């Protein structure tokens, strides 16, 4: 029996879909059987980021409305031997095409065959959000070090706390080291204190996230990339390992930094 995790944020554009794709891939790299569900009906993206767009035949609404079996709609990622599957969203209809009850039944059915079901939630707090959280056992809230994103995360956490799911965990995405170190962006501590939920991990901002998404190859495949390391660490924490939080101070200290490190011991 697997576990269903919804990835949500409230605000759009903070990296829910990128996080879903990368965490799904990272869990598959760890040898888990993962199914990703894109619930952003009408504005689907997860298939593009995973590079599976051309292989979609059926979608989520087809499954819900009984036009096909769920196995027929699942798109297999050939990079992983039976490890990663995607249930794409429909593009021609909208969020009202399905309801939370149907979603719950679908997730329950999938949990029998997969270790992890990652549900990519659309932005907003309306029907799409309600559908996405319906079948989830756990929730991950994604935010960025911006006040607007943190406010929306707070709203979403409030809504999640009223549901029958485990307390949500936080991912802070798109961290720019120099802004955070200089105090020009909210720091990790400010955000976690404000939201009062556990931090699952942080992801550094990196240009390769964009280029690799455009290529349909999640950045997490590159083990040297700093963002990829963040995603891999989070995947390990989801699996129950205890992994220390990534340091935000730059890897290469300058001359004075080295000098300082000699004296400060």
């Amino acid at each position, binding site marked *: 029996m697997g576990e269903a995790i919804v990835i949500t944020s409230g605000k759009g554009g903070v990296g829910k879909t990128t996080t879903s794709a990368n965490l799904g891939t990272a869990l598959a790299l760890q040898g888990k059987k993962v199914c990703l569900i894109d619930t952003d009906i009408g504005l689907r993206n997860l298939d593009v980021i995973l590079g599976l767009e051309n292989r979609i035949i059926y979608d989520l609404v087809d499954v819900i409305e009984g036009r096909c079996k769920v196995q027929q709609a699942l798109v297999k990622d050939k990079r992983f031997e039976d490890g990663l599957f995607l249930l794409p969203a429909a593009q021609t209809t909208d969020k009202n095409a399905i309801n939370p009850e149907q979603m719950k039944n679908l997730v329950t059915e999938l949990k029998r065959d997969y270790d992890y079901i990652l549900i990519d939630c659309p932005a907003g707090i309306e029907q799409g959000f309600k559908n996405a959280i319906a079948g989830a056992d756990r929730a991950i809230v994604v935010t960025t070090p911006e006040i607007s994103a943190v*406010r929306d995360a707070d*709203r979403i956490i*409030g809504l999640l*706390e009223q549901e029958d799911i485990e307390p949500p965990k936080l991912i802070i995405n798109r961290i720019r080291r120099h802004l955070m170190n200089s105090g020009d962006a909210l720091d990790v501590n400010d955000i976690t204190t*404000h939201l*009062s939920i556990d931090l699952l991990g942080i992801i550094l901002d990196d240009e390769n996230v964009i280029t690799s998404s455009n290529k349909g190859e999640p950045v997490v495949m590159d083990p040297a990339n700093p963002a990829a390391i963040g995603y891999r660490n989070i995947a390990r924490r989801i699996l129950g390992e205890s992994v220390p939080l990534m340091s935000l101070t730059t890897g290469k200290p300058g001359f004075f930094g080295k000098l300082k490190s000699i004296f400060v011991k």
Partner: protein
Amino acid sequence: MTQLTKQQYVTIKGTKDGLVLRLDDKCAYSDMIAELRKKVDEDGLEGLAEVQVHTGNRYCNEEELREIMNAIHDSPNLRVSKIQSDVITMEESNRKVLENQSETYIGIVRSGQVVQAEGDLVVIGDVNPNGRVVAAGSIYVLGRLKGIAHAGSSGNAKAVIAASWLEATHLIIADKMETMTDELTILSEQPEMECAYLHPNGFIAIDRLQELRILRPGLSSFKGGS
């Protein structure tokens, strides 16, 4: 003979505070009011007398109370100073209990959430921006108040808002609102352990928590101890 044994439904007593009209609470209402009319009619008073009406364990609705008042006021010599009753309805009783009680909310009031209380409200946790706490009485936050607080929501201007960390975006007491903008002089540099109250000048003022004992001594409901 029957005249003598007849139960008295209305008794008039003179006390040092004036006349007391005791209305029997066992008999039928119609019998009582009929006797009241008769008694008032045949009183031999001169001048104006204040009467207190005691209805005992009889519950009278507003219409009945008005009828009793009118019956007494039929006499030019009698004025009702007050009506006293030993009973209230469950509804009134429940309302009184709610108004006087303090409700406790443990948790974080997040953006978009509203926590409401009929009496005082104690929040143990933070009130985040765009979170709203509303109470007919006072609001006490053990944590950071960074959202919107409305105390005395049904008009109580004596209500206060106190917080371990008072950094609200909006403070409302009774019908007076203050937006906590940077240029506001009442915003102190240190928002720790403060309280907001309605100043006699009509504006919301902020002071140290410790000043409450002088500003609002009436809020204390403490009994016991030594």
